[in-house]
């Protein structure tokens, strides 16, 4: 594992990307009728920061992601992305500003090939997305797509329809699509769910090997994965932030253990 790729301090990375916070949530709430899926969430993430969001099912983790990426709008509160207020932006405008996400349940184009999926992801944030002209042989986007396919080890199946891929391969494709274009910040929604142990360790290596300036938030149930790929942890419970801190602090916190690890005698 190449932890050395991650610079020691966040301040070091800050110089790469400007001074504004990567993500700044102020009082974000989301109500479905009377149900508060998110209640008054405030959160600041610095550029290049790698953060894990933990919490039991229904804690509001995915809802938080949906509000940040604009899959649906929060009931109240504001969201800033690198200093810009994106609270009212439609999803595609947020994506074009360098925000990316993966989905918990793979949302892929099952009738298209692996390469086409990644190519589409690259097109979405490029000026050529309305082009009626087919890419030429040495098209930069096609080349980049092939590289991304290579990064997630899918080159053997790049011309295969996504519907014929295994579950693990589909998860890898999700990640390749989130890395396309020029992401400044990525939201990973349970990327390790359903992966084999080998695939998990591969995922950890992909995440730790990402360029330094690229921060991310990762939702992950597997503590082992979550704590290895993040430098800060936010615990959520019932739609609110329950505890924040360094991985080691969170791991040792008795309240967190009681809540998250359940009656598992604090192991």
């Amino acid at each position, binding site marked *: 594992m190449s932890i050395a790729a991650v610079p020691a301090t966040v301040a070091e990375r800050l110089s790469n990307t400007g001074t504004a916070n990567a993500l700044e949530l102020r009082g974000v709430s989301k109500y479905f009728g009377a149900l508060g899926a998110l209640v008054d969430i405030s959160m600041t993430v610095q550029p290049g920061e790698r953060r894990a969001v933990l919490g039991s099912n229904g804690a509001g983790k995915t809802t938080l992601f949906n509000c940040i990426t604009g899959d649906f709008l929060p009931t109240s509160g504001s969201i800033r992305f690198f200093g810009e207020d994106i609270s009212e932006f439609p999803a*595609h405008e947020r994506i074009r500003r360098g925000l990316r996400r993966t989905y918990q349940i793979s949302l892929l184009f099952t*009738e*298209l090939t692996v390469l*086409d999926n990644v190519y589409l992801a690259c097109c979405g944030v490029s000026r050529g997305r309305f082009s009626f002209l087919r890419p030429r042989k*040495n098209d930069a986007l096609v080349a980049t797509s092939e590289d991304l396919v290579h*990064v997630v080890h899918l080159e053997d199946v790049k011309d295969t329809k996504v519907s014929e891929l295994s579950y693990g391969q589909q998860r890898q494709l999700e990640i390749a699509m989130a890395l396309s274009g020029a992401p400044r910040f990525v939201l990973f929604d349970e990327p390790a769910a359903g992966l084999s142990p080998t695939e998990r360790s591969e995922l950890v290596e992909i995440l730790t090997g990402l360029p330094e300036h690229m921060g991310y938030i990762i939702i992950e149930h597997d503590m082992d994965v979550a704590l290895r790929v993040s430098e800060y942890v936010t615990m959520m419970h019932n739609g609110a932030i329950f505890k924040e801190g360094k991985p080691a602090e969170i791991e040792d916190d008795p309240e967190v253990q009681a809540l998250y690890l359940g009656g598992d005698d604090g192991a």
Partner: protein
Amino acid sequence: MSSVDQSDLAKVQGFYFSSGSSLRPAETKPQSGPSIWSAVPSGYWVLAVLLLIMPALVSDFTLFQIFGWTFILGMIALSLMFLGGYGGMVSLVQMSVAGMAGYMVAIFGPSAITDISLGWPWWLNIPLALIIAVIFGTLTGALAVRTEGIYTIMITLAIASAFFYFTRQNYTIFNGFSGFNGVLPPELFGVDWRQAKPFYYLTLFWATLSFLIVSYVSRSPFGLALQGVRDNSRRMSALGFSVNAHRIAAYAFASLIAGIGGILLTWQSAQISPGTAGQGPVIDILVIAVIGGLRKPIGPFIGAFIYVLLKTFAIDVLVSLGLSGDRFQLLVGMSFLLIVFFSPDGILGLWDKWRESRNRDPLTERSSGGLQ
């Protein structure tokens, strides 16, 4: 699977920083693109040659009435196939867009209704007609993309019906019930384009061109994005695509094809009237597209050929069986039912099934990749 190769990450890192413009040397991607000869299935070459020498083989009636009409209806159905097959939007307004183009050619260009027709030259009235048809189709699209599935069908049917009733009741512009007759193609290059052979080649040219363009665009970023919108619109937004903008652009593109088809249709019968784009023809376009198959651009032309054959010869068949000739719609409907019942993907679906069963490996029960 091996562990992550850090140099691969390094390779793409440049791209993370510099967005789309990071060009890597072209020679790192050695791709031997297939030549046009091997890329096109041999069946298409046989078909192309056959179509080119067709006038030497068949009668003028067949050329003008069967093939000419097939190509025209095929183009209008192709515009529906583009929206429905690639975009997942079943639009019933395509025949009305075609009708609009036909009306505009009659109004701006020459016709027998000299009170209304302006008689402008072809280089003015044809582009103008196409522009208005595209605007009409795009506006309809802008309304329709706010809906999904059955509601798209309903709203486009409503607009198609409105167009029919409006043209029937409006006498100042659309000349009401009787419409326009004597709408003839311009005598370009000294050719009378309504003669069977020239008309055959004229329609063949435009049908082939639209077929090729749709096939080409389906693999372009725009076409891929449209198929992405069809499969998963939410994900498309999460990739930075404006879903509705793409859908509306698809309507604009489809309207252009339908518009060209509409002008040819008007020239073929030398007239345009409300009935051209009435509810019957509007539904017929859907029937044609579904009979042929919505998945590939060749489907609508196959569907149109079958439809035209039925429409032309069903009466003769019925009469020879001692039945009343005016029941030909029954035969059309029955064929539609049978095809949809046995293959929801139309004739193309049947063809694919047959190809697959031929390539099936008896041991693994999986097709051995014979499908393209």
